[in-house]
């Protein structure tokens, strides 16, 4: 039974994600520039960028098939779906039964496959290179992300993201070493998945190092705008997922309109702090060679599995 509050909350959460995602990207870029002693771009730069791109004509490569044209829409759709499932303001999401946490990983995987296929579709060497690297990173990051989710699912006894968040938000304050392990693993995975610094640099077009940028080189106009927006949405979705799993306090419950209103400023504060921390971590880390990425993500996988094992050993008895 879908309640009116739930319905409104759902619509509001998606609208908020669409509106707020570029702001989060802008905020991280701004913090990064400050920390690196550069003059910062305006906070609203991503919006100007999207506005500009939506008003430009699309230039298609000669060999581009229809896959190349509809891939941005699929990627964008996947990210909107992800943002609709992940509880950012309220855990009462009528849309949540559409996909549990495991399917959520699948949704991210679907977007990744289509963007990699589109990159290979045109047949430029950079696109192929970017697509292959992206699949390498994805293939390493996905098991780690799944392990993190398994840990949380075992604690909450459910794979539905909304239920996990509700359970975690309502427990007594207990030190779970497994959640700490899972949290570190999740941070590492989200850096890799969102093409942030230790694995990829979103601000560079250097051919030897780029991964995400290499895949979208051939895109222009509204296609590029959609992909950029989708990238922002992905970052926002991962941030919200991280906040919901590891700092779930303040997320509204069922049929509680007042809590929903209170959740918004809290979410903004959490995102602002999280964004600043992302910028800090990006600044103090150097981009590593692509061949070091397996080691980085292997460590994330290790931490996630350790979290799971420690949970089984220490937290299930007693």
């Amino acid at each position, binding site marked *: 039974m879908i309640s009116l509050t739930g319905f409104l909350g759902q619509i509001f959460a998606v609208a908020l994600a669409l509106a707020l995602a570029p702001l989060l990207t802008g905020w991280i870029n701004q913090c990064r520039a400050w920390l690196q002693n550069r003059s910062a771009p305006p906070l609203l730069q991503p919006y100007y960028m999207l506005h500009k791109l939506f008003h430009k004509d699309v230039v298609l490569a000669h060999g581009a098939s229809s896959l190349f044209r509809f891939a941005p829409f699929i990627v964008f759709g996947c990210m909107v779906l992800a943002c609709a499932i992940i509880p950012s303001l309220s855990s009462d999401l009528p849309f949540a039964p559409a996909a549990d946490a495991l399917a959520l990983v699948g949704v991210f995987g679907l977007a990744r496959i289509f963007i990699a296929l589109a990159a290979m579709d045109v047949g430029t060497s950079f696109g192929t290179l970017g697509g292959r690297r992206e699949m390498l990173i994805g293939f390493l990051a996905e098991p780690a992300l799944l392990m993190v989710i398994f840990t949380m699912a075992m604690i909450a006894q459910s794979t539905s993201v909304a239920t996990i968040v509700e359970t975690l938000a309502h427990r007594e304050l207990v030190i779970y070493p497994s959640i700490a392990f899972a949290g570190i693993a999740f941070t590492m995975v989200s850096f890799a998945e969102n093409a942030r610094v230790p694995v990829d640099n979103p601000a560079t077009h250097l051919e030897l190092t780029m991964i995400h940028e290499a895949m979208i080189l051939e895109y222009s106009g509204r296609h590029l705008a959609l992909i950029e927006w989708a990238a922002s949405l992905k970052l926002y979705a991962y941030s919200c997922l991280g906040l919901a799993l590891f700092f779930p306090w303040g997320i509204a419950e069922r049929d509680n309109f007042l809590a929903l209103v209170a959740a918004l400023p809290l979410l903004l504060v959490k995102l602002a702090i999280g964004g600043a921390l992302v910028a800090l971590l990006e600044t103090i880390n150097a981009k590593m060679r692509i061949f070091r990425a397996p080691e980085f993500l292997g460590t994330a996988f*290790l931490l996630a599995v350790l979290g799971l094992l420690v949970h089984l050993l220490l937290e299930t008895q007693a």
Partner: protein
Amino acid sequence: MTSMPLYAQLINLCAAVILLLAFAMLAQRRVVQLVDLFALQGFMLFLATLVMAFKTGQHHLFYSAGLTLVLKVILLPWILHRLVRQLHIKGEVEPLINIPTTMLIGLVLVVIAFNVAMPISQLSSTIARGTLGIALAVVMLAFLMMITRRKAITQVVGFLAMENGLFLAATSATYGMPMVVELGIALDVLVGMIILGVFFFQIRDQFDSLDIHHMEQLKER
């Protein structure tokens, strides 16, 4: 969900960090950082013992916590650092198997250790019996480190880390060993460390290297 008392949570947290540090030592490429990680592991062990001592009020646990602090956090790392400086060990330790593979093997070892320890810890009635599995895992990871490293000094660090694991096992399963045994072991480790330090110099004088693989071709002259 039944919640655990706070001290049990703290001990579990310390044990989990000790396990994490065991993995960090397995992954560490540089000798100096390896010694620092060992000192940190000793410190977490000290904290765990201290919490347990406060909870149970057993005097000898306070002594063994103090012994851990003096020996494993201050004295042994200091000796190791001095050895590293005097032997001019620089750069990276070369593992026999590459590090990601070592980590995966380590993960399998942890699963085995947890499985083995699960029925044993059911028999124990101490407050921290869950950490027995972690202690066993730390011992096995230290074993793995000794097996996969080439240089003598990293093997010694592995040996010392193994002692950390044994100590954790003793405290978690039975509230520590009798004081005499504990003192004896501490003295053994210290003396062993000093003798091994002398050995390092001998090995290096003989082979111009600390790589113990040279010792496989020893011949009488």
